């Protein structure tokens, strides 16, 4: 019996429980006319019963599905090992691999050794049994819970309050999933980064200027000693982000000022959403725009001015990234400018300030913290941006501040380090986690500062 059918059965059971609970509530109070004497509406008793019925059933279901394969594999391997000499770990893992492939049907049963084939058959048999017992246990738990709640239903049972508390817990559980996932990701990055730093010293990573993460696979391999100085990556990231901000901050800010202060409401209603559409364009589209249009264009312009521009340059990537983050700057700045109270503008106008004086000296001044917050968010977005730089900035870890040359960024290197077959104990692979940790910390810091600044500003005028 497949898990999805079990899930459907649980849902059906919950629906049944609702009806049972509701009917029971009406029955204990003595019919429809007497529902006023119930503490809560009959529906609340139904909901309470359904929730109590579904929770244990779902709990069993989730736990079972999560651990089933593990437990089954263990049972089967115990059988495999039975009566033989202990199997070495490497061979065991090979056998397990075969076993999984046979079970999944991607490897014909005839191509594996006899014990593995037997084990695979056993695995399939156990899995069938497990399916049925899952249904039995999960539904059993649900039915038991149903009966328990049904027995508790009396007119003075505070069903609404209990139901609402359960809902509150369910909501809490949902938010906990998101938070715990984040914590898990961070922990895994920290852990792997720790392994990296146990091989490569901090000082080399943070102060080394040579990035060449190729590791020798054989001892006699030449030229792949591996160098993990991340400074060129930081410089490249910084350079591209800088170019992007030089594009995005003035364009975004000025368009926000125009939209908020000068544009007719009609125009604003059309232009603002259009500008925000920029944020919805997939970054890979920006990427090939950078590669196929901006890159060659810059090269032609550069040649006509006697400059050598690399086909993949920081400038091309930065320009396109700048265009991409314009809406982040403009949208937030626009919100902040609009949030400046009219009374401040009136105060300035009443002193005889012109429109431009009012905007420059009063409105922007008041909106400044919010605008800075928006810019910081845009910076953190630029630093974390991957697709555009992968496509347009190049892979060469050049240590340069010349935007016409190819540079590489932290995100690009993470991608290249993890693409393809990797061994997870090589510093080359682990370096990706160290870089990821850096990226995470920097963007986290920027976001925290930005949110703090924005929130502080908002409190001021509300």
């Amino acid at each position, binding site marked *: 019996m497949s898990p999805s059918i079990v899930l459907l059965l649980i849902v059906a059971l919950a629906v049944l429980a609702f009806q049972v609970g509701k009917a029971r509530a009406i029955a204990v109070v003595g019919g429809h006319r007497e529902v006023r004497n119930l503490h809560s509406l009959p529906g609340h008793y139904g909901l309470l019963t359904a929730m109590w019925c579904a929770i244990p059933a779902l709990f069993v279901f989730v736990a079972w599905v999560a651990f089933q394969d593990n437990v089954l594999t263990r049972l089967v391997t115990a059988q495999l090992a039975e009566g033989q000499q202990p199997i070495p770990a490497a061979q065991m893992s090979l056998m397990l691999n075969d076993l999984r492939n046979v079970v999944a049907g991607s490897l014909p049963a005839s191509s594996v050794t006899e014990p593995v084939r037997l084990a695979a058959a056993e695995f399939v048999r156990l899995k069938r049994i497990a399916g049925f017992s899952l249904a039995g246990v999960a539904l059993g738990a649900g039915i038991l819970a149903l009966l328990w709640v049904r027995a508790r239903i009396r007119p003075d049972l505070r069903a609404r309050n209990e139901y609402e508390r359960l809902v509150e817990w369910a909501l809490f559980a949902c938010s906990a999933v998101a938070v715990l996932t984040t914590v898990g990701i961070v922990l895994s990055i920290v852990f792997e980064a720790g392994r990296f730093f146990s091989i490569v010293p901090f000082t080399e990573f943070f102060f080394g200027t040579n990035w060449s993460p190729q590791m020798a696979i054989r001892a006699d391999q030449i030229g792949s000693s591996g160098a993990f100085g991340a400074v060129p990556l930081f410089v490249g990231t910084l350079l591209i982000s800088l170019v992007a901000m030089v594009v995005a901050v003035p364009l975004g800010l000025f368009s926000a000022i125009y939209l908020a202060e000068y544009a007719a409401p009609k125009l604003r209603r059309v232009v603002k959403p259009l500008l925000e559409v920029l944020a919805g364009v997939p970054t890979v589209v920006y990427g090939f725009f950078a590669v196929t249009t901006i890159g060659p264009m810059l090269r032609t312009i550069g040649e006509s001015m006697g400059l050598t521009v690399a086909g993949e340059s920081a400038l091309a990537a930065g320009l396109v990234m700048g265009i991409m983050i314009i809406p982040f700057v403009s949208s937030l700045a626009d919100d902040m400018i609009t949030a400046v109270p009219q*009374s*401040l503008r*009136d105060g300035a106008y009443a*002193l*005889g300030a012109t429109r431009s004086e009012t905007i420059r*000296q009063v409105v922007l*001044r*008041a909106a400044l913290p919010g605008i800075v917050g928006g810019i910081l968010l845009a910076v953190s977005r630029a630093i974390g941006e991957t697709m555009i730089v992968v496509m347009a900035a190049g892979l060469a870890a050049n240590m340069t501040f010349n935007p016409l040359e190819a540079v590489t960024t932290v995100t690009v290197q993470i991608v290249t380090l993890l693409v393809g077959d990797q061994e997870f104990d090589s510093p080359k692979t682990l370096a990706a986690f160290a870089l990821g940790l850096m990226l995470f910390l920097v963007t986290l810091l920027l976001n925290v500062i930005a949110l703090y600044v924005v929130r502080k500003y908002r409190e001021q005028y509300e």
Partner: protein
Amino acid sequence: MSDKAVPPVREGIRTIGQVTVPEPVFACRDVNVHYGDKHAIKDVNIDIGRAEVLAMIGPSGCGKSTFLRCLNRMNDTIESARVTGLIALDGQDIHDKRRDVVQLRARVGMVFQKPNPFPKSIYENVAYGPRIHGLAADRGELDEIVNVSLRRAGLWEEVKDRLNNPGTSLSGGQQQRLCIARAIAVNPDVILMDEPCSALDPIATARIEDLIDELRESYAICIVTHSMQQAARVSQRTAYFHLGDLIEVGETKKIFTNPQAKLTEDYITGRFG
């Protein structure tokens, strides 16, 4: 400059009482304001004299704030507002195309209902007007203007040690006096006050009222207020507005003790409002 260009008040206006004064600062003739379809001010004729406080009273929505905002053309910032009629400052039409609204507002200061200091330091708040109008040749003169303005607004003693603190760090009453200092720093002829005490506690209100009385010597002041006691305390003339009409104008004492119009009497005796 003289008021010769301003025509006399035409016959047959409905306003009761003496609407003109000799040598007025402001002379308003048949002023009408429309907000879209709404006729907010109807044929208002009134003069505002020098060195006097004119109080404008009336129930909510009667148009007194709208009329006040006509005097420094603040209604320009409202898209749907349309102002017609003659408003003359020292005999010159303020809507004259040859004159600029910036010059007008430099001569007609305004204090708002809610204190609205700029997000700048106390010093910069007061220095803002003189700066944009180029009234000070150097830093020394600017310091002097700020000093004098804060003194006149009765705020100097309280803030002299913290001129660089943000204006928003002051209490509500102090903020309002800062806004008054900001307005008088550009040395206007008239100060318009739109319910300047409605957001303040009684003690801060009393200070502002004392201040208004002192400022009267140098400026014509036009104040909109909801408090009849305040109008009686600070003003020399009172104008009563009702649903966009200017019902009655006269000496404050007379308006409050012996109103001529039935509507005025009903309002000040508290029958509605």
